[in-house]
Structure formats: C-alpha cells, structure tokens
C-alpha cells in the first residue's frame, strides 16, 4: 500500500478512496492525479466544466478505461478488476443517457438487476412472484404504479429513477450517478434530490452534475474538477466563496444558464 490506511472508524464503514488517479489518453491526461475520499452517508457532488474529466474519473473507477494510481473500496483495488467484478464489490453506476432495457417491464428491469444475488443455477428457474428487495426498490423510487409497463415508454426522468432503483436492487453501496437530473423538470429534480438524500443515508452517493441549483439544494460535499485535476473540495458555501471556482466554472455557468 502506498499510503497509510485511514482508520475505518473515523470514516464510516464504507468509503471509496482514490489517490493519484491518472487517465492518460495517448499523452493527454483526462484525469490527472486526482485524490478523493468518498464517505458513506453523504451526497457527494462532482462538478466542473465540460471536459474536466468527471465522467472519465467515474469510468476509471468502474473499469471502463484503464487508469494508474489507486482506487480502493473495502481493501479491494478497483483498477485491476474488470467492470462486472467491481459491480459485485458493491459499486454501481448510471450513464448520462439512461440505459434501461426498453422491451422489458419496469419490474423485469429491477429483477434482472438482482442477478448479482443469484447463483448461476438459480438463473435457470423462471421468475415467480416479486422478491422483497425488488418490491422495496419499486416503492422507494416511486414507480410501483408503472411496474408492468415496458421501460421504453417511461418518461425520461422515470428512466433515471428506474436506473437508481436497479442500483438499489443490486445493493450498490457506492452509487456513481452521471447527470441523473439532466433534462428533468424542476419538480422531477426536487423528487430526485429527495430520493438521493433518502437512500444516501446508508450509502455513498456521488453525483456528476452541471445544474448549480440542484447542487446547492442537495450537496453535502462538492468537489470541483478542472482540466483533469481537483480544484477544490468543500461545502456548497465554501465552493461558492472560492474565487478560483468562480473564475473557471461558476462565473460562466451562472451567467450562461437559465433554468426552466
């Protein structure tokens, strides 16, 4: 181990530790020596202008792009493991465009996410009834009324909730959500934020976001990235007070964005 191991009691049981993470695309460093400690029980926001390396960071931690440095969860080195094993270790993610199985029903989408809990032999049996963890997730994300609808007909926001529901079924302890509220109405954003706070109590939630109103309302911790590096980390107030942040990010966004 290259760094002294922080005491788990100080940090909560589940935390994701990133040290010196670097993603190098043929000489271009998309992520450049990032240090992050993501703690349980907090809604952690990752913000920054386009191209800051937020999504690439999440890609690296979930095995989609090769990276150097350290990304560790429960003493498991994530950079040397393939994506499906990372998921089985308890780390789940969503993508910028919701990728649910359009032809399967809402219920089936949630059920299929429960595959991590089943043995290969159990997969040969047909689904009977609704497992309790699927019913719970259905209730939590508020899609119980739509359970038999094909996921393809859901509204954009509902698809994102379904994906979050799938992460709940997977029992992901760390949820990496890539712009979950993009394209949502103000009302849907409120609901999503409340949902994240609700499920975040016993999990580590990381949200990549552009919408500053949303960040202000629901962030416990904010990390600002710029050009592959961490610019600053702190509470919303600290971030807003930072002149550097205003220069590279907030200044531009606040002036340039009008919210619906």
């Amino acid at each position, binding site marked *: 181990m290259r760094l002294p191991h922080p005491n788990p009691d100080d940090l909560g049981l589940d935390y994701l530790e990133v040290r010196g993470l670097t993603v190098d695309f043929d000489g271009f460093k998309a992520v450049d020596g990032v240090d992050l400690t993501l703690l349980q029980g907090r809604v952690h926001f990752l913000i920054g202008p386009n191209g800051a390396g937020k999504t690439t960071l999440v890609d690296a931690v979930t095995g989609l792009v090769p990276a150097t440095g350290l990304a560790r969860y429960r003493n498991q080195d994530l950079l040397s493991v393939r994506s*499906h094993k990372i998921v*089985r270790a308890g780390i789940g993610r969503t993508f910028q465009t919701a990728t649910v199985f359009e032809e399967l029903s809402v219920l089936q989408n949630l059920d*299929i996410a429960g595959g*991590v809990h089943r043995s290969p032999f159990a997969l*040969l*049996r*047909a*689904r009977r009834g609704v497992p309790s963890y699927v019913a719970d997730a259905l209730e939590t994300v508020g899609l119980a009324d739509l359970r038999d609808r094909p996921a393809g007909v859901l509204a954009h926001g509902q698809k994102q909730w379904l994906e979050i529901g799938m992460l709940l079924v997977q029992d992901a302890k760390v949820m990496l959500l890539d712009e979950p509220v993009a394209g949502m109405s103000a009302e849907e954003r409120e609901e999503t934020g409340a949902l994240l706070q609700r499920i975040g109590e016993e999990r580590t939630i990381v949200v990549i976001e552009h919408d500053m109103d949303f960040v202000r309302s629901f962030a416990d911790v904010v990390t600002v990235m710029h050009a592959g590096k961490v610019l600053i980390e702190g509470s919303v107030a600290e971030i807003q007070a930072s002149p550097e942040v205003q220069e590279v990010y907030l200044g531009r966004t606040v002036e340039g964005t009008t919210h619906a």
Partner: protein
Amino acid sequence: MKSFARSYGPLVAIAVLAVLLLVVAPAVLSPFRLNNLGKYCCWAIAAVGIGLAWGRGGMLVMGQGVFFGIGGYAMAMHLKLEAAGPEGIPDFMLLYGDGTMPGWWEPFRSGAFTLFAIVALPAIAAAILGYAVFKRRVKGAYFAILTQALAVVFATLLIATIQETGGFNGLNQFTFFFGYNLYDPVNKKMVYSIAAGLLVACLVVVWQLYRSRFGELLVATRDAEERVRFLGHDPANVKLAAFVIAAVMASIGGAMFAPIAGIISPSDVDATASIFLIAGVALGGRALLLGPALGAIAVGYGRSTLSESFPDQWTYFLGALFIAVILLFPAGLASLFGKAWSRLPRRKAAPA
C-alpha cells in the same frame, strides 16, 4: 399476474407438435416420407439451438454445420464400426488406406462413449472457441464470418483426410443402430421417433430457458451488452452458455441425421449446409420458440419436394421465398400465428 395461456400456451403448442410428429406422422406417412421428416427433425434440432444463440443471444452462428458434423461423424464412426463387427475395420480404410485404423477411432466402438462424445465434444469445442471469442469481445459480422470460416475449414479437413474420415464420400452404409438392424422398417420408425422425441425435448429445454431469468439475461445481453456488465454479469459468460447449448443441440441433430439419412458427408456439414440451417431459422422466426424448428422443417420439406419437381430451379424458389419473408415478415413466418391469435375476438381480460 400472467395469464395461464401466456405462461403455458407455448407448452401446449409443443405438445401439439409432439402429437403431430410422434403419433400422426408415423400413422399417415409412407416409410420414405417419414424418413425424410426424420431428417428435417434433425435439422430442426440444430435450428432450435440456433434460435437460442442467434434469436435470443444475438450471435449469428454461421457455422453450426461444424457441431452438426461433430455429432454426425461421432455417431457415424460408431455405426461404421458396428457394421464392421468386433475387431473389424471400416471398409473405406481398406479401400483407400493401408488397412489400419487410426487409434482415435477405437473408443467409438463403445456405444456409451459415442453417446458421451456426442454431447461432450461439441460442448468442449464450443466452450474453448466461445471463451476465446467472447472474452475478446468479438461480435457481430466478425463473429459470423469467423464461424462461417470454421465450417469451411472443417469440411476441407474432412475432404482432405479420406483415409481417416472417408473424405468427400463421407461415412455411409450403416447396417446397425445400437444393435437394431437399420434395414428393418420397424427399426427405422423407431430411429425416427427418437429424433422427433429429441426435437420435442430440445423445445422443452429452450422453453424453460426462455422463461427463466437466464433467458431474460440473454435477451438483455443481446440488446445492451455493456449495460449487462454493470449489472454485475460478464456478458461473455452469458453468451458462452447459450453458444455451448446451441452447439450441443446441433451435435445431437447431426448424430440422429447419420442413421436416418444413412450417410454423413462433408456436404452435410459445410458452409452451405450451415447457411441452410440459418435460412430455416430466419424463415420460421429466430426469436420465437417454435419458429426455428418449424422453419427448418419447412426448408427441409421444400428442399425435397421442390428438388423432386424442379431439380434445377428449386434453389431459386427457396431464395425467392427467403427474400419475401425477410421483406414481409422480418420476425419470421411463425410470427403470423401470434398476430392471428392477438386479433381473435375474446372476452376482455381482467386488468392485471
């Protein structure tokens, strides 16, 4: 809740097909026609596997002739040795070779070993091939070309090894099938019934697979492979399982083909034969339960009947039919049953 008809309707359809194949057909068809139907059933068994791998799994398996051939040749070697008698040597080895038998033929004297090999050999071959291919994320057209090339290689290898495999002539002139004289019409009927029974059994197997969670996962892998990775599954393993099952089914089809057709030769297992299998599946409907089997039987029937009436032009008919089906019913002919069923007037079902 799903209605009873939706859950068990397919099983009823399989049962109807079983009655048609196992009771009605032997009663009404002449021994010659029944034997032909037996051949179609063998192709249908392979087609059921293709339906699983291609229709549900999205893997366009263009070289199932290879696995059909593994099963067919394994069975044919046993029948050849049975015909030669204890300690005997297959006739063609005396004709083309020096009268010695290669050592790897020897275990096929045992019927039990042969049956084991018919299942194990294709499973091992498909597992090795599939592991190498799927772990490297080879898919789409590349996968199709690779499997097709394999069929070409396999047939070329058979033709080149006349002393060991009978070469272009293949293996033929079988007299006994596990002790039963193949010239006896009653025994021929029995062999047919075994093939038809195996077809029904394979259909029941895929019915269970399609309704299982594995079936849902396989379709999910077909439609969004990367997404499945983030459900905690390695898509390669999901595809590998379907590919191996499809290979074993093709092998079983081939194994029954040898005694029914009385011959297995490179032209039964080469690239063209593999494409005929695919054509049947596409015609019937690759993603449907009964589509591949019915399609393969229809193509087989078309091959025989049209080639009797129009020995030179029949492939054009088949080609035209193929084009028409792809244009008009991309989901296959069997999808018409489903459409007709959903248009039937019926009492309004209680809301779920």
